[in-house]
């Protein structure tokens, strides 16, 4: 996904009252501001941010409350990290790839082409040295950030026809931002970056011919299927879209150890909840978009993916070359993902292929 704003986004939002949880006059109770990159009325993701805030409030017995400002209500969606780093807001809920102009290595903490799926990301951050690297990077910008859930593996995008070769992309203006956009651009595709709020108009106006957003449930809400029935997979470019909960570093460091643990817990809990919630909704949506809206899912061919993998490596190598820290993050990230990819091939991946194939639960089998 990348760009946050849903079509229903910002116009009405500014007028809406923030979700204030007024602090009761207990000793030391305070209210922090939480700014998000999501329009208040978009589905699932803003509620995920609010759930994190509510968990912290409840677990601190009301000592830490939040006033939540969704996209544009206080800060523009891409500027939430700036605001928190400067102390203009206390916390943000976003995806780190929105900040790659500040430092390209932020991409490693959100979505890397052919990179980690969410539970692998969690493993790298908590048991593989990743969090220390994130602290070092975000610390340069006055922020401490935590992994706070994921919508799960994304889809490869909506197209007017099945995409089997790079030639099929000729003449298609494709809305796809971030590292994936760079890779497609390197493949000669005309890429466009538009906020979510403009996608439907851009499609009807002919400004774009294809679009990548998130996954079945959230995409179905936009209705892309009506214009672009061909839904490509896998989403090689974004295997997790990791959400981050960022806190002003001076503020985070001033918290008690108990409070810091409550912040970590509230973010970590979301790793269990958000992906599980969307997984259920995506499962139902895949079925209904095929049955009721005539969507066709197609797999990107192996050769096409091999080509894009090569281009992805070049793009990521440029990111790694940015500075020494980017180089260290890149090395740690890819050492981890290479190791776990070998294991995934004999565990979760092999199991799903074998189960779905043998029981005819889905369409392909590991043995085909």
């Amino acid at each position, binding site marked *: 996904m990348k760009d946050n704003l849903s079509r229903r986004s910002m116009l009405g939002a500014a007028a809406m009252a923030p979700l204030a949880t007024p602090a009761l006059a207990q000793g030391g109770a305070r209210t922090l501001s939480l700014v998000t990159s999501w329009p208040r009325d978009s589905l699932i993701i803003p509620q995920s941010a609010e759930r994190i805030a509510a968990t912290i409030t409840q677990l601190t017995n009301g000592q830490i409350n939040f006033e939540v400002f969704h996209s544009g209500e206080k800060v523009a969606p891409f500027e939430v990290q700036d605001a928190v780093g400067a102390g203009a807001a206390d916390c943000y809920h976003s995806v780190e790839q929105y900040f790659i102009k500040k430092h390209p290595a932020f991409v490693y903490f959100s979505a890397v082409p052919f990179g980690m799926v969410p539970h692998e990301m969690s493993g790298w951050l908590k048991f593989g040295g990743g969090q220390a690297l994130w602290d070092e990077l975000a610390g340069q910008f006055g922020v401490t950030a935590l992994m706070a859930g994921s919508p799960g593996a994304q889809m490869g995008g909506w197209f007017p026809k099945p995409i089997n070769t790079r030639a099929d992309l000729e003449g298609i203006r494709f809305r796809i931002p971030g590292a994936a956009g760079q890779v497609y651009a390197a493949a000669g595709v005309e890429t466009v970056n538009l906020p979510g709020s403009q996608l439907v108009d851009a499609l009807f106006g002919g400004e774009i011919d294809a679009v990548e957003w998130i996954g079945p449930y959230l995409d179905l809400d936009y209705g892309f299927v009506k214009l672009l029935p061909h839904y490509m997979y896998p989403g*090689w470019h974004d295997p997790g879209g990791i959400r981050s909960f960022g806190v002003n570093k001076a503020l985070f460091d001033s918290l008690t150890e108990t409070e810091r643990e409550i912040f970590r817990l509230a973010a970590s809990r979301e790793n269990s909840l958000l992906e*599980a919630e969307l997984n259920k909704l995506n499962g139902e949506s895949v079925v209904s978009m095929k049955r009721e809206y005539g969507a066709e899912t197609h797999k990107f061919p192996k050769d096409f993916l091999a080509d894009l993998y090569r281009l992805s490596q070049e793009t990521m190598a440029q990111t790694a070359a940015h500075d020494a820290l980017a180089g260290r993050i890149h090395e740690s990230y890819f050492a981890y993902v290479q190791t776990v990819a070998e294991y995934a091939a004999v565990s979760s991946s092999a199991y799903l292929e074998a189960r779905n194939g043998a029981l005819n639960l889905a369409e392909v089998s590991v043995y085909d």
Partner: protein
Amino acid sequence: MGGAVRRRSFLTHAAAVSGTAALATPALSQGRQEVRLATTWPRDFPGLGTGAQRVADRITLTSEGRLTVKLFAAGELVPAFDSFDAVANGDAEMYHGADYYWQGKHKGFNFFTSVPLGLTAKELNSWVLFGGGQQLWDQLSGEFGIKPFLAGNTGVQMGGWFRNPVTSLDDIRGLRMRIPGLGGETLRQLGAEPVSLPGGEIFAALQDGRIDATEWVGPYNDLAFGLQKFLKTYMYPGFHEPGTAIALGINKAWWDSLPEADQLLIQACAETENDMMIAEYNANNGASMRELAAEHDVTVTPFPREVWDEIARVGDQVVADVAKGDLLGARIYNSYQRFRRSVAGWSEISDQAYLRARADAFGTG
């Protein structure tokens, strides 16, 4: 898994129990309550025991000691498999264990841990947390006075250790394999002789020929256990436990007596472990698998298709039969199966297709 617990626990438990008998009731003083957490794991058992300890420590820390959780490893307060009864009876407030250990009380408990050909960790989270599973679990455990939560998952387990690769269904016939529960029943129907053995007896049974093969957990635990010293063929995919969920079971009367804030705190700590444990396994399984192959001459190989397909067919039927004749069991099974059907198409085009594409790209497929 099925018996990951038993290995060291029962060796020491007799001595340990007498030493802890004095801890009978939760102490209440100055707003601080001691909460007894009985686990089915040896202390600090990698992944499972460490996970239980994280749950205990997190509750104590985030409640600022209002709920001070004292963890009892298997056998320290009660034997591992008595943990459920201990909590139901109020001899402990909570247990951390795999709910299929209680399948003797009700077969429905299998579905809240893992069943052959069942849901992966992510799919199970979806079913329990957002697909109606929690309500059914509440009803089932509630019949025994327990309130359950998900509190960890090991991820997909491996298919097991063998002397030689299984190349045909003939190799399964007569195979003496240590594999408990529904996985064992599946292989029994295919002509194997499944054996249920505590972990502590596995090495001896391999040495004296009582068994030829065994399953355990996955590379992280299996390497530490030392199975590679006895068997060199490690097969995949694991059909019997595709995502082993670990439960935090809580005495319901005690739970109901807690203020809402403390209930949320315990629930949030359990849900957090649902993230942490699979992360710990993920961070260690890959490296352990590399070590098994590179330093211990272990061959990692898949079940041939005709073997897998037959295991899958029989295993799925074993699961369908498990809850027959019981209304709640049938409702649990139906809900679980409906969910698997509704999510499988999505799993196929998301995680399954993505991981395959990545393995192809990396050349590790």
